[in-house]
């Protein structure tokens, strides 16, 4: 796994590339939780370049969500992969996480509206 980090409009945008599973989660957690520990920026997790996620990867997304919640930070998830969305829906995280279809929408809306869950996006999945 590779992890790209950039700063934009006051947000850290973290983009993991490849598979987020029990094998790669330790690196992902280390990078993201260190960034969040800095508390210099709010966070956008751009998951559009993930090819696979398992239950360990899901657990890491929840852990990051909880960490950001405790410090009242902003956090958005960018996901456009139907398979990733399907897995999140199976564990009912689509009702919890603030998911956007691209980084532009996340930057535009997350701080203004508090984010949203695109129900239409999820409802098309089988």
């Amino acid at each position: 796994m590779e992890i790209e980090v950039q700063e934009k409009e006051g947000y850290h945008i973290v983009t993991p590339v490849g598979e987020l599973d029990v094998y790669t989660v330790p690196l992902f957690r280390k990078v993201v939780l260190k960034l969040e520990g800095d508390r210099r920026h709010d966070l956008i997790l751009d998951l559009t370049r993930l090819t696979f996620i398992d239950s360990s990867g899901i657990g890491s997304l929840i852990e990051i969500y909880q960490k950001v919640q405790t410090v009242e930070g902003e956090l958005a998830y960018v996901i456009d992969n139907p398979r990733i969305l399907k897995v999140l829906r199976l564990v009912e995280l689509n009702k919890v996480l603030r998911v956007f279809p691209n980084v532009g929408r996340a930057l535009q809306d997350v701080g203004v509206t508090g984010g949203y869950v695109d129900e239409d996006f999820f409802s098309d999945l089988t």
Partner: protein
Amino acid sequence: MTKISSQTSPDSDRRLVVDLPCGKKSLSRARQKVVKFAADHGFGADAEDIALAVQEALKNIIQHACPANNNMHFECIAKSDQLIIDVTDSGSGFDTGALDADPVPPMALHGRGVQLIRGLMDNVWVTSDQEGTVVHMEKKRATG
């Protein structure tokens, strides 16, 4: 180095038997084998779902039941109407009643493996005793 052995049964090519070292490095290779086997036997539309379910079952072995011989084992059987997979370990077993206890809280950090398996597959049974555990999974052939 990860070593994975697999074989087909002598009477047909509809069975895949895989033995692999008990470790995280084996998961990606195992998943690839399941995806290929599923696709080769007409389950391509569900191949990724099936492979994720197998990974979750294997991950439980890694986390809870790596046996003394450090071996994980699973078998896939392609039938006309469904794909059947048994993931087997020789660990000390566990109380399967715990699987049907309270549902996983939405914000729990762990414990979603079986929840995912049940969501991805059509039928799932888990049997366990002092000699080990079998996760039996079935996926019906997609129609249309």
